């Protein structure tokens, strides 16, 4: 990766470009500071030591694994949120696939009752994966549907209820209020639910991901992130800043458009990919 055989400024510049172009943002500046200090202190003296040093720093920043919220009896409810086009609906399909493979019963709630053919899109996935879906026509009230889905999941003794929601920008006050209402309505029917709120972030997104995480966390107590489209060339580095500033862990990463293209987050592998 590094062409020179001395740890000179040109080598450091190369590393700085790598960090910034991975969308690490503010974390990139801190990493370069740490690297310069380490060089000055004689802790890092050759180019070959740079990448392992930085990898360790970033893995540290990503923090420890955070356990899932335990669920007593009744369905585990997962609310899936995020801005438009980030990959929520497809991620739900992937989660359903993963859970089914683990032997759990799954139900989907098609609470995007706004966007053209959103209900149809989730319906296709439900058919393909052979999972139960609670849906209504476009234009129906999403909160009412969320309540009915929670009710059905409880009564039908479902293991996991995955709730799809319409894409919305975190700056749209009325839409964020709608999301709060959906969460509240779910908790009315199933106390303690939703047990997980997954913010789906598009892996190609830059620094705006931090603002998205901040606003969604403030509104609906996000518990974890899914970073999609990492099968492309984007590195998803913004999640490092999100963990540092908001203490939100990455739960899963999306690596394609098929139902199998989801992996549980592995910090070491993620960090290694940053340097590919």
């Amino acid at each position: 990766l590094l062409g020179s055989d001395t740890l000179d400024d040109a080598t450091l510049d190369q590393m700085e470009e790598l960090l910034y172009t991975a969308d690490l943002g503010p974390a990139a500046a801190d990493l370069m500071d740490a690297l310069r200090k380490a060089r000055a202190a004689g802790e890092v003296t050759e180019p070959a030591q740079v990448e392992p040093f930085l990898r360790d720093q970033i893995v540290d920043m990503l923090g420890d694994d955070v356990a899932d919220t335990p669920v007593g009896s009744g369905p585990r409810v997962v609310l899936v949120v995020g801005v438009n086009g980030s990959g929520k609906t497809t991620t739900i399909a992937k989660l359903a696939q993963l859970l089914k493979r683990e032997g759990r019963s799954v139900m989907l709630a098609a609470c995007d009752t706004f966007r053209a053919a959103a209900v149809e899109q989730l319906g296709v996935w439900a058919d393909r994966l052979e999972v139960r879906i609670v849906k209504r026509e476009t234009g129906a009230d999403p909160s009412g549907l969320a309540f009915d889905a929670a009710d059905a999941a409880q009564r039908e003794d479902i293991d996991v209820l995955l709730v799809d929601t319409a894409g919305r920008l975190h700056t749209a006050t009325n839409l964020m209020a709608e999301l709060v209402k959906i969460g509240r309505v779910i908790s009315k029917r199933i106390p303690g639910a939703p047990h997980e709120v997954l913010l789906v972030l598009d892996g190609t997104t830059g620094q705006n991901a931090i603002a998205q995480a901040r606003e969604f966390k403030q509104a609906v107590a996000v518990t974890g992130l899914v970073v999609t489209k990492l099968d492309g060339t984007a590195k998803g580095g913004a999640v490092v800043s999100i963990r540092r500033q908001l203490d939100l862990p990455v739960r899963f990463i999306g690596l394609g458009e098929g139902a199998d293209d989801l992996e549980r987050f592995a910090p070491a592998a993620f960090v290694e990919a940053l340097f590919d």
Partner: protein
Amino acid sequence: SLTQRLSKVLGGLTGGGRLTEKAVDEALEEVRAALLEADVHFRVVRDLIARVREQAVGQEIVKSVSAGQMLVKVFSDELVGMMSSEGEPFTFAGGRPTVVLMAGLQGSGKTTTTAKLAHWLRTEHRRKPLLVAADIQRPAAVDQLKILGEQIDVPVFHVPGEPPEVLAELALAEAKRTGRDTVLVDTAGRLHIDAELMAELSRVRERVTPDTTFLVCDAMTGQDAVRSAEAFQQTLPLDGVILTKLDGDTRGGAALSVRHVTGAPVAFVGVGEKIEDLQRFHADRLVSRILG
């Protein structure tokens, strides 16, 4: 704001003085940080800073304006120059239907934007558009475009079981037959590193020779914007870029990087999910947003 940040750094240097090299370097560090925060590509920032540094050192500070304001103006002028364009987004063909091809990464807003453009063409240019649902891969993508077409009273062409390039060709024939003068082809989102799907896009282009090809790009894209835009440009010469989801609070620096690396001007911006939420691009507005 950037002007305030620079004023702090430049210690209120005002009229009568000249910008020293040291003062310029400190101020440029501040601008560099602002541009990177705004998602402008690392290399684009580096080149831009170098160009402006040349212009800025030794500049006399105009009496009525602070050094900070002056430096922001230098950057603003430079960026507006980079983002401006003279041409019209559409070239309408004579005597045959005009073909518009939409391409881009997954989820960037192509389907919604294709419908918005059809509506725009009808209301602003009195065209008779035909929408082509050529995304046969995403679940309910054809339904999505058909529903949007119904909302704006524009016909949507689709034949089940045909690949995208055949759909586009059949749609062109249909347009000629039914007197539709503009054919807008929606395509599936794809990765620029997916050789097969990029070849498919090439085939669509070869079959219908688009008059205008748009890259639909999400305004919140980060540093990857350069990589993907460059790759799309290599497969499909781009006539324009449409920047979507600008109704959010993303600074939109990716637009600068995309223009810089492809040469394609931003023609339109998407500012919402509704059909009417499409506007002509204004360089000065985006630049002041990027500079923060």
